């Protein structure tokens, strides 16, 4: 009987812990980034699928272009969101540093670092002509240079 009581008590405690935990320890951030990464992965999968559809003659050129543009736009949107999230994190981190080290960094230095980081993020264009490249492109749309997708991000 004592065993039953202990087991029942333990079960109630576990369930109570699972239900109350979110109130005591709220979930850390990063939700938006996870969603964006998920969206991007899905759109990329679909792009590959579309290529095969087109190559095997299941899609006409105009339909293929329209669907591809749609998926590329989804990838772009996710990329844009990811950049924003990155920039926000840099801002937040910089603000944190500023607060922690009073007088350590001046606002100009922070701005310089943010700009530097944003520049790094934006430097995913064509290495030959600098034009912007979509993640899924294999050739630069501007100069036609072959593009290694692994370098994109």
């Amino acid at each position, binding site marked *: 009987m004592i065993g*039953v009581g202990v*087991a*029942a008590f333990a*079960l*109630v405690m*576990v*369930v*109570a812990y*699972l*239900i*109350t*935990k*979110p*109130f005591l320890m*709220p*979930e850390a951030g*990063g*939700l938006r980034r*996870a*969603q964006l990464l*998920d*969206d991007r*992965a*899905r759109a*990329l*999968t*679909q792009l*590959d*699928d579309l*290529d*095969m*559809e*087109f*190559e*095997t*003659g*299941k*899609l*006409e*050129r105009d*339909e*293929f*272009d329209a*669907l*591809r543009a749609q998926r590329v736009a989804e990838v772009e949107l996710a990329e844009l969101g990811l950049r924003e999230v990155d920039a926000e994190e840099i801002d937040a981190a910089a603000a944190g540093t500023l607060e922690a080290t009073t007088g350590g960094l001046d606002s100009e230095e922070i701005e310089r670092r943010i700009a530097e980081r944003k520049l790094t993020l934006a430097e995913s264009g064509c290495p030959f002509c600098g034009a912007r490249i979509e993640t*899924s*492109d*294999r*050739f630069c749309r501007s100069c036609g240079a072959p593009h*290694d*997708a*692994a370098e994109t991000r």
Partner: protein
Amino acid sequence: MAEVGRFALFVALVSGLWALFAGIAAARGGRDDVQRSAEGALGGAAVALSVSGLALFGLLLSKDFSVEYVAEYTSRSLSVFYTLGAFWAGQAGSLLLWAWMLALASALVVRQNRRTNRDLMPWATVALAATIVFFDVLVAFYANPFQRGAVTPSDGQGLNPLLQNYGQWIHPVTLYLGFVGFTVPFAFAISALVTGKLNDRWIKTVRKWTLWSWILLTAGILFGARWAYVELGWGGYWAWDPVENASLMPWLVATAYLHSVVVQEKRGLMKVWNVSLIVATFALCIFGTFLTRSGVISSVHAFAESTMGPLLIGFTGLVILVSAGLIVWRLPDLRRTGRFGSIVSREWGFLLTNVLLVAMAALVLWGSVYPIVAEVLRGVKLSVGQDFFDSLVTPLAVVLLAVVAICPLLAWRHGDARHLWRNLRIPAAVGAGGFVALLLGTRFEHLGMVLTLALSAAALTTIAAELRRGLHARRTIHRESWPRAVRNLFGLTPRRYGGPLVHAGVLILLVGIAVNVAYKQERKDVLTVGGSTRIGGYTLTLQDLSLDQGSARVAVLGTFRVRGADGSDLGTMVAQQAVYQNQQAVTEVAIRASWGSDLYLVMNGVDLQKKVANVDVFVEPGVPWIWVGMIVVIVAAVIAAWPRRANMLAREAPTRGPSPGERASEDREAVPA
């Protein structure tokens, strides 16, 4: 242990109710901590129901006959394998399995969506919690497996001998997992409807859930057919029994969904249809449970009548009402964003596939419920025979075969007859040639079989051509070697090329059925020891009747010598007739399988004194191919659904050549037809 199991059921109920109401509060108030608590409660229900489930396993293993359920379905002599399998031998255990698996699935959904789909999760949580609560109520208040009996018997009644087959560990479990799995797509569909987030995200989120549930349901149905064949001793594998139909209906509708969802992804069409199909699949899963568990229909599965019929039909009605209401409410947002293309386009092919599958489901539904309707309206008891289903479903299946042969060749939207003919001429020639040859070979008999075989040949040719085209495309786009192209074709585009393989499995299975229906032979005979009977070129001689006495059963073994048409010795077959401790008598079938055909032997009545046995012998051509098709379907579907890392595409990308978009203008015509 029974008390712990029972208490855990109530903890699961409280936890489920918390998930339900906290989910509603979070959906309305938008507070993430409340939603997380609701999700935690789903995990809590999973923990509690796991305790209940493990407690029942423990009670069965310890053979605690003070618990009614244990006394009813096990006995001291029952092996551990079947003792554990007795968990889902009865109603209470089956429903506990439903609730338990659903709670585990819900906990998995929560884990998968910790950081994604946060906007869809509240209402999905509500739908999952409501279903868990419903089944938990059934288990806790209407069919509690932890109920103690008034007296404790010295031994249990034992497991029904028919259930003492390895299938007991596969068929019920996979079927239940399939039913349970469809709750997840349903929950997300409801969430998408309530929140109005009706873009493709909910569909993509539940894609794997739908596919795996479909695989489990398929495996459940096919293993059930195999079990019926090897265990029941009637030489068949499908009887349109209401309980079989109960699993076939959601399968047909889910199969329709798997096809039409592609149309939504590619063309932005059939949105209302897709959400309706997911709701219908789930509703049919619950309705199937009602047909099986309420006792309103008579079936070989012979489940006892219970009081939960009104609850199950009420829940089915509620699911349909709420979903239909939501769909009507959201109709303006579910407007299609594309247009149907020419009549020879792929979307029309998919639409026709859907119409055929849903029509079959509707016919099966009508055939299954008609006896209930007739009894309610006219007060007559009747049952719908196999002829009804055979004569109505078979023609639709044959048309579907033709669609399977043609549809993969169609292009989206702009398909034209000239392009179609270019791709279709080889499959059409194979089909037509096969049709003529078979018609002549069979002397114009068995037209249905000839048509099925010819269309299957055409469809298999289409599949082979599609795979060849896909491999060629990979080699062109990605400059891959043949082995690498094969690996990546299934590894990177699994749904597209796993699909045709599933079709191939279905075709093999249908060919097996068609051949079996056309050429099956049966012979009943009474043999004394030394006597023979002939069937389909075989001669079976009863050599000996002997007694085999075990602790749990007494069996009469009949040993038969089998000879071929040329007199060659093909070995012996041993059929049994056994009587179990609980006085249940069963026949154990003897099957001699070869690649093309089974020799199937049942010994019905035996008189040991007179050394006489009643035998029923079947020659079953094509049956082995049904099982080959079954394995191909399951393996191919697993390939299609196998999880792959999202970054595989990124890793593959550097090896790519020019994009099709860029290359299109130059070599569009070079793509093989």
